[in-house]
């Protein structure tokens, strides 16, 4: 009996890159920790004892520890904190591994650079502070490069579409329109204004207070946070002949071509339980979501990939438009 060989190939083994990226991200922390310990050991004679481990808002050190203790703390934090995201990545759907590997890798570089940077900058003749200027920019740039690199390397490549046309389930909601009618749907998903205001108050007020107290550069951080909130707090949702598109200004969160849509339907979303929060999220089963509230949402099942979920009003209408367009491409 000759069984088709393709049946024996498990689908998941097709692309190991998400897993490789995750493993790489797990190694960055320990490697940087070892390098940091060696660097600190090499300059130990020039460092004070005890060393400063914390700086107050005025830029003056307010907490000290022995060099051994400070080095050990830096090494443990650099190696272990990023592992939280690696563990999540291992437990979640493969499509979540790329983004989580990027996050873990960037966090490892950030922690390693700033923790060991603030230690070795206490040599005579260098500017000692929580974020030593000579370390800050290189650390942030490297963290960004490593994060984006791991993310790209580990991004999920959906399996190739089969040549045979799929057919939409018979019970999928559809519009009752002639084939000559062009149909499209536009809508938006936005965090309630009260919610955005609350986040701004809770998140930015402490930054502004500290900034006024003597760290003016934190104001810039506050402005960046508010800008990010405004940018990521609402999205335009479009269904047309190209498929589904979810985007905020110049950022496209998700683009699902019609050929990749298996079926669109409505779903009821519970933000905290299913996505752990609001905004652009990845669920543990790999589903992507632009989540701004609980309740009615458009759910788009994809071919060979986890679904995409967007909280919009009149989701049934959006689903019907998408299904209608998909059904037309099948014939």
């Amino acid at each position: 009996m000759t069984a088709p060989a393709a049946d024996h190939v498990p689908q998941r083994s097709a692309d190991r890159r998400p897993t490789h990226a995750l493993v790489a991200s797990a190694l960055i922390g320990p490697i940087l920790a070892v390098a940091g310990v060696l660097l600190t050991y090499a300059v130990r004679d020039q460092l004070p004892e005890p060393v400063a481990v914390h700086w107050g808002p005025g830029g003056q050190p307010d907490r000290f520890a022995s060099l051994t203790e400070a080095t050990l703390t830096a090494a443990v934090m650099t190696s272990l904190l990023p592992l939280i995201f690696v563990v999540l990545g291992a437990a979640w759907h493969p499509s979540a591994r790329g983004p989580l590997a990027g996050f873990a890798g960037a966090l490892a570089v950030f922690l390693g650079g700033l923790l060991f940077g603030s230690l070795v900058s206490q040599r005579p003749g260098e500017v000692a502070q929580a974020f030593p200027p000579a370390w800050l920019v290189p650390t942030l740039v490297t963290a960004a490069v490593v994060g984006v690199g791991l993310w790209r390397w580990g991004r999920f490549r959906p399996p190739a579409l089969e040549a045979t046309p799929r057919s939409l389930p018979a019970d999928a909601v559809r519009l009752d329109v002639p084939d000559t009618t062009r149909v499209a749907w536009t809508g938006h998903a936005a965090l309630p204004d009260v919610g955005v205001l609350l986040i701004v108050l809770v998140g930015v007020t402490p930054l502004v207070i500290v900034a006024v107290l003597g760290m003016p550069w934190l104001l810039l951080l506050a402005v960046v946070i508010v800008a990010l909130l405004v940018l990521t707090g609402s999205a335009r949702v479009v269904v047309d002949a190209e498929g589904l598109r979810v985007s905020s200004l110049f950022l496209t969160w998700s683009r699902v071509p019609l050929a990749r849509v298996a079926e669109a339907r409505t779903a009821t979303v519970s933000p905290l339980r299913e996505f752990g929060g609001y905004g652009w999220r990845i669920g543990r089963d790999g589903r992507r979501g632009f989540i701004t509230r609980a309740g009615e949402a458009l759910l788009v099942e994809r071919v060979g990939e986890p679904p995409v979920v967007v909280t919009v009003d009149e989701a049934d209408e959006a689903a019907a438009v998408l299904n209608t367009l998909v059904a037309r491409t099948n014939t």
Partner: protein
Amino acid sequence: MLWRVDPTSSTPLHVQVAACVRREMTSGRLEKGDRLPSAKEVAGVLDVNLHTVLRAYQSLRDEALVDLRRGRGAVVTATDPAGDARLRSLVADLVAEARLTGTTPTDLTRLIESEFQK
């Protein structure tokens, strides 16, 4: 909101686009202060000329249903398409329904005329 136009219909495209907006208004899905998608976006999703959508938006402004401001786009100022506008929206629906049931324009006209004579 749902957008639908039929290029094979004898109704001009800009009238059909405006009818989409009126339909949302009469069904209560568009409220005062809501912003319509930009004309560029609508033109893109329906694959029609930008000027077609602009013309539709201008006719809605002429009916005092939306406010057109540079930079702000089209903002809904009233949600009750009155008189002629409402009639046009109803006729658009009627014709759409007639297409579905295979009713010819002549049959539909006859039906309307008999309704008038009641």
